[in-house]
């Protein structure tokens, strides 16, 4: 008959945690499959993309900014992929609730999984761009050092930071679609405020006003990018101030994110 009593395995997840974990896995797998379905190069694109970007940017900017940067292409690609992890994950998390509308309206599902899904998916893509970094390091014969053990710490903090932002903007976007446009503007401004292709030293050398330097230093992405370059390029442990900044920003955004999400999530279904 249809129901098999012989099956020894439990049919349902033992806890909400286990259930949500499986849902998350399935959703991230779904994103991954859909992204690369019917593309000839498939996953290779995630490696090629940052490489191509790096090549283009190095050609243009190496004449402008690279005077005192060793291994400028490596400097560039590290900045690019780190910043891209933030933009990709927050851009996707921004509309995650809105896009999950069909699901939210029909199925009982913990809502926080959607921004989390997008951030984790961006992390998966990020891991492929690390292959690109490895290629560049090989090319320039940069020998990796033990400082790379810091990588999980950096990524964990960055993911927490992105989840926090994702929860905030994702929740707000449900009620005000303007947030979607606004976020595009903020990201553009943020890109230029972060030393991705330029060098922080340049600001100091050219006597930038203290408040500009202050803003850049407080900028969370400056700290995350510096963290990445410390461990990959400059072969040193991150400075305590960098580490504290990253951890502090991660904690603050996550807390605000959770607060905003908790306060608004019950009304999502009426607005998505």
């Amino acid at each position, binding site marked *: 008959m249809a129901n098999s009593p012989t099956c020894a*395995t439990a049919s349902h*997840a033992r806890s909400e945690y286990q259930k949500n974990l499986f*849902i998350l896995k399935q959703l991230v797998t*779904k994103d991954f499959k859909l992204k690369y379905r019917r593309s000839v190069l498939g996953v290779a694109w995630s490696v090629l993309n940052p490489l191509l970007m790096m090549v283009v940017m190095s050609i243009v900017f190496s004449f402008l900014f690279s005077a005192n940067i060793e291994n400028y292409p490596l400097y560039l690609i590290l900045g690019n992929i780190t910043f891209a992890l933030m933009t990709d994950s927050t851009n996707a998390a921004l509309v995650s609730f809105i896009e999950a509308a069909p699901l939210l309206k*029909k*199925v*009982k599902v913990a809502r926080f999984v959607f921004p989390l899904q997008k951030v984790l998916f961006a992390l998966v893509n990020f891991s492929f761009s690390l292959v690109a970094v490895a290629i560049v390091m090989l090319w320039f014969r940069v020998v990796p050092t033990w400082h790379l053990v810091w990588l999980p710490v950096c990524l964990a903090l960055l993911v927490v930071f992105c989840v926090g932002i994702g929860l905030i903007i994702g929740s707000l976007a449900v009620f*005000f*679609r*303007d947030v979607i446009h606004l976020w595009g503007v903020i990201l553009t401004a943020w890109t230029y405020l972060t030393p991705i292709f330029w060098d922080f030293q340049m600001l100091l050398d050219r006597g930038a006003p203290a408040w500009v330097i202050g803003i850049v230093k407080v900028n969370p992405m400056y700290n995350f990018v510096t963290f990445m370059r410390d461990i990959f390029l400059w072969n040193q442990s991150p400075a305590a101030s960098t580490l504290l900044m990253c951890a502090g920003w991660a904690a603050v955004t996550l807390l605000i994110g959770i607060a905003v999400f908790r306060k608004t999530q019950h009304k999502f279904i009426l607005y998505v």
Partner: protein
Amino acid sequence: MASTTAPEYAVEVNDVSMVFNMASEQLNSLKEYFIKLMRHELFFSEFRALKHISFKVRPGEVVGLVGTNGSGKSTMLKIIAGVLEASEGTCIVRGNIAPLIELGAGFDLELTARENIYLNGALLGYTKDFIDGHLDEIVEFAELRDFMDMPLKNYSSGMVARIAFAIATITEPDILIVDETLSVGDVFFQEKCERRIRHFIESGNVTVLFVSHSLEQVERICQRAVWIERGDLRMDGPVHEVCEAYRNQFA
């Protein structure tokens, strides 16, 4: 919590009201919102889809929900299924639910049937091992073995419904919610679905909430009926009495 002495109920609906804000226009932009806020024009007309509904269902009971279109039946089921949250009151559900409310909700049309079975299974709270072990059974029941690796967008709606029904009912749920889903698929599959639901009912362990516009079907399947009309609980009792009263309103 300890004082609640009714673990014998599978579903407890306590004084549930559902209020929707019916904005005359939906405000999706900050500018509009602040302009309205400044002008003190930020009014919403309230729409009460459900008004102080209470009923309790024992495990193994088969309850039909009747009422005319737009009277709140589906809202009630969605609250019980946990999709909507009640504005007031509480709804306590004990056990796992197989919601056959909108078949194929949570399906991604770009994914293949096989991938969708896992995705949907996850949403239903199944474990991966369980789906692995029952994949054949699901495919068997849906009778779509040859199409397992085809994207769902190439399926007909009837085929999608078959897969959805097969996943949701592969294991005996504690509570089964059926919302007119039996009207999908061809006659043979409809009969197959009804047989499976009947099998659940006869086992005596499954609580069934059943919504249908076919009173005959309700009378055939249910023991008890709840009549919701324009958000009010009009009547709750043995199926024949309620259906009789429901019919008489049109007479």
